[in-house]
């Protein structure tokens, strides 16, 4: 017991020291030989195909990071699928999850909110080119709509995904990958180098595809995990 509290003390001491050193370092931060990347982003913005700097960075200047990052999401989904596919599915009626008044409120709000959320997602996707918004935010709103539908009992939870659902999960990722591969065949032929005239349309296609697939994946996290019931008896 004392061993454990000693360990706690050591960890807390180290963390506190680290925290204070970090804050000291931040306050002492030199700014002398600092590169101002934000200026370069603005200079090159015209060549990026979009007018919103963050979207330009996300899908053009550092689009490679984004390509790898959507693969991280897919990996998490693969892990979730691997962990949920072995369970015995049990249909949990909605009334167990929620009390009656809540349920009514949810049903009502789902009917009103979900169409609005889909509209908002479309709006966010559409404006991403020139103001805050874009695929990730739109996908998150779509996923939230999915969660709400599921909670109000209008959308069943997902089990082992069918062929078409799997295609939906990776559709946007595949599209992104194929456009990336296509850039190698267009002039000038570097990975992810969009021709200036086509950059805008490429980014829009990729964002639309990602909105769908990321929305499905994010919703999938909830819809795949949420219907389990621990009905397995202890082994004895």
């Amino acid at each position: 017991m004392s061993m454990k509290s000693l360990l706690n003390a050591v960890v807390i001491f180290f963390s506190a020291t680290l925290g204070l050193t970090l804050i000291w370092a931040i306050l002492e931060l030199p700014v002398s030989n600092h590169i101002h990347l934000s200026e370069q982003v603005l200079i090159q913005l015209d060549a990026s195909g979009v007018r919103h700097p963050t979207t330009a960075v996300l899908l053009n200047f550092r689009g490679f990071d984004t390509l790898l990052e959507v693969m991280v999401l897919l990996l998490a989904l693969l892990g979730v699928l691997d962990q949920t596919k072995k369970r015995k599915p049990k249909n949990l009626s909605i009334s167990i999850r929620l009390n009656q008044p809540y349920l009514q409120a949810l049903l009502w709000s789902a009917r009103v909110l979900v169409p609005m959320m889909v509209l908002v997602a479309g709006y966010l996707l559409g404006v991403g080119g020139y103001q805050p918004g874009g695929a990730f935010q739109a996908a998150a709103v779509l996923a939230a709509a999915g969660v709400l539908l599921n909670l109000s009992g209008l959308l069943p939870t997902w089990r082992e995904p069918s062929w078409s659902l799997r295609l939906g999960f990776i559709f946007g990722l595949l599209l992104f990958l194929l456009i990336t591969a296509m850039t190698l065949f267009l002039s000038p032929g570097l990975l992810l180098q969009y021709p200036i005239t086509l950059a805008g349309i490429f980014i829009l296609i990729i964002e639309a595809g990602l909105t769908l697939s990321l929305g499905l994946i994010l919703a999938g996290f909830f819809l795949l995990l949420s219907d389990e019931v621990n009905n397995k008896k202890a082994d004895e």
Partner: protein
Amino acid sequence: MTGALIYACVGAALFVCGVAGLILLPHLLRKILAFNIMGSGVFLMLVGLGQHDNIPDPIPQAMVLTGIVVAVAATALALAFVRRLLYLTSKAQFVANSKSLDQTEEKLITRERNKEGDASK
């Protein structure tokens, strides 16, 4: 001192709290909370330190968007494992610092041995 630096400092504090929580807190769900707080702290540092003279810098902002998506992916994966563990072992082993994970494993091995012993009789 500008607003960005204040948030960078609180980001550092959150990062440290998250690290300590991730190491010290015994409950797996709390470890996941601590991981998310650690992540938020790092993101605040990234954006707060990137903004010199209070000019917004889109590069760290894009990086943080990437980071947020990675964090939710990791959280979902962790929860999938946690629920699977709960399904397999029932409630008892839900506390899991490094030591109790070892103890769980020990129990598991003993149980396997006992079963084999029964089978051979």
